[in-house]
């Protein structure tokens, strides 16, 4: 009997540890002094490539985010390299897989900052990991770009964090104002996961409803690994909402949309950033995704010359149509390259300082004005999924 109990506990402990993706690298307790790190970057001889790191999920259900991040960044870097690089030096992109695990992300951030001596870094699309990495890049004075949308990211008070896309509330405010004022909807239900991104989206949705003197009929939550949402959705459907608001990753949002329709939900489905992606359409299936509303900072627009040029270049390089992560990492990398050109001498600390001076820069998502907190742009537009494609909402 005793053996059984002992066995159960030991086995559970080990299995849980295995599931939590253990990291081999020991957690750093005493980091080298800051000046040493920046000096090392500064003393790189001319001619050696300038390194930009990408820490992102390249495996697991969020793998698609890392892929998009790499594609947008690489495209901008390759264009710059073709044009001669920066101060005669080529730019090199190095990628690291954190599997969307904050613990892994922090260890990689430490490695990137101290061993690889990157000039700047993209870390990460996952708000939870992006938040975890902030103190490390602040300590080593390395500019950190993210397209994670959680508002807390820029409220951490770091001078080295930059968000190359609008923050979460911008997505949800636009979406909910549209649904209420344009579509005349009043009865909302929210389903959001418990990650920093999902919880953030749910919170911004609630805040936007409150601003319109409304309240969600119900708000349900789930863990990021969950695949069956019958319990939550059954609870939601009892409240008979007109709109089901999604606040989770591309895959989970797609599965929820699918299961909600299968449980008989006939109303409107809508969501922010993750819903406005090809992955959402693929997971939900084209029929179910049809007519879903989303908000996004960028959509393929034939009328816009800059957008058209980007889409063609992206298609030629990667053989796929870009979505907004590809666009915002392209935008952010352009900002970074601009700051690198101006930084004198070229150190990561000076690059961050130059980034803060950027204003009125035109990009794919609009006009960039970098704030003291590291926000660069606001404003999103409403889109609708039509015929399996992400399209701009035109009022019909």
């Amino acid at each position, binding site marked *: 009997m005793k053996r*059984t109990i002992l066995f159960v506990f030991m086995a559970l402990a080990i299995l849980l540890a295995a599931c939590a993706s253990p990291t081999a690298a020991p957690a750093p307790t005493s980091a080298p002094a800051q000046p040493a790190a920046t000096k090392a970057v500064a003393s790189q001889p001319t001619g050696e490539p300038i390194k930009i790191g990408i820490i992102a999920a390249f495996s697991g259900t969020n793998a698609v985010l890392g892929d998009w991040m790499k594609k947008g960044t690489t495209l901008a870097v390759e264009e710059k390299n073709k044009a001669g690089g920066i101060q005669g030096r080529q730019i090199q992109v190095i990628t690291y897989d954190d599997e969307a695990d904050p613990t892994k992300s922090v260890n990689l951030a430490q490695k990137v900052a101290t061993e690889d001596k990157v000039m700047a870094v993209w870390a990460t699309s996952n708000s939870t990991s992006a938040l975890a990495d902030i103190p490390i890049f602040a300590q080593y004075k390395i500019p950190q770009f993210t397209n994670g949308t959680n508002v807390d990211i820029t409220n951490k008070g770091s001078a080295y964090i930059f968000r190359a896309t609008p923050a979460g509330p911008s997505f949800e405010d636009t979406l909910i104002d549209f649904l209420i004022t344009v579509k005349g909807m009043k009865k909302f239900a929210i389903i959001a996961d418990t990650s920093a991104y999902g919880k953030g989206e749910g919170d911004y949705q609630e805040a936007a409803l409150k601003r319109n003197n409304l309240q969600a009929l119900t708000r349900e939550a789930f863990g990021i690994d969950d695949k069956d949402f019958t319990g939550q959705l059954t609870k939601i459907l009892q409240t008979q909402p007109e709109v089901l608001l999604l606040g989770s990753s591309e895959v989970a949002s797609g599965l929820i949309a699918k299961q909600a329709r299968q449980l*008989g939900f006939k109303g409107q489905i809508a969501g922010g950033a993750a819903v406005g992606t090809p992955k959402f359409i693929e997971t939900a299936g084209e029929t179910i995704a049809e007519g879903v509303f989303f908000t996004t900072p960028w959509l393929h627009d034939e009328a816009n010359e800059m957008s058209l040029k980007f889409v063609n270049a992206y298609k030629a390089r990667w053989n796929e149509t870009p979505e907004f992560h590809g666009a915002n990492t392209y935008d952010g990398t352009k900002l970074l390259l601009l700051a690198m050109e101006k930084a004198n001498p070229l150190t990561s600390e000076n690059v961050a300082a130059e980034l803060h001076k950027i204003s009125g820069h035109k990009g794919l998502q609009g006009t960039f004005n970098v704030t003291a907190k590291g926000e660069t742009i606001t404003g999103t537009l409403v889109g609708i999924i039509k015929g399996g494609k992400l399209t701009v909402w035109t009022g019909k």
Partner: protein
Amino acid sequence: MNIVSIFIQTLVGGIGIGSLYALVALGYSMIYRSMGLVNFAHGSIYMIGTYFGIIWYRGMVMGLQVPYPIAFVMGILLTAILGLILERIFRPLAHLDLMLMLLGTIGLGYVLDNLAVIIWGAEGFAVNSPLPNEPIVIGGVALLPQMLLLITVSALLMVGLNVFLAKSKMGKAMRAAAQDRETASAMGIPVNTTNALVFAIGAGLAAAAGILAAPIVYVNPAMSAAVGLKGFAAFILGGAGSIPGAIVGGLVFGVLEAISAGFISSAYTKGIAFVVMIVVLMIKPAGIVGEVTVDKV
């Protein structure tokens, strides 16, 4: 919708996912019973098994697209063969210390997960159901055809397994070998062969679960962890090594998750299910259907 149909709706979802856990738990249980081995690579076998079936259904092998029932059978057979190979690798582990057994099986699980990433990529994909996506509505309860298929086929497999173990000559030999290795050996039962067969059946059941659930969930290499853990929890909850225990444990675990999501708090479903499991084990350490023989390990 009245409270009764809401409850039934939640229950059906719970039983569906519970059947998935039960089929996975059966693999843990059968292998533990016959070899004394807790196979922590079983979640990874479930994941590989899912791919083994779905690659045919999606036409990922030389563009050859086969109907779902055939892909289902092919997936099970391929995974059973993988089970035979794995049994040979695990055979020396079965006699080792629990800690070494854990490390060995977990390690091999990681190898399988990484192989899946190398072969099929890390990203994963959604799978279309071979059945209509329109639910069948009875008294306000929406029954999804794929979910009904999962429940029905799982039930048939479980009944079939029990009949096989109770009635067939090979089934009886397997039970005898599981009960007393030495005596069975002395009676002329080829214990290594029965063990290999047990492993193959366990792997095949996990593949069946994965292929049936694939149109409901999202197929990717990371799917091994969550179901592997819950299948293991079901195996312990029912009573380690017990066949009916694995089935009951799986269903109880799935229903607990669904009910806590629908009626208590949706954010803490996993926590609630595990708390119940720990409480049950504190009151009845041998599990719900636990057998006394389990303690002799």
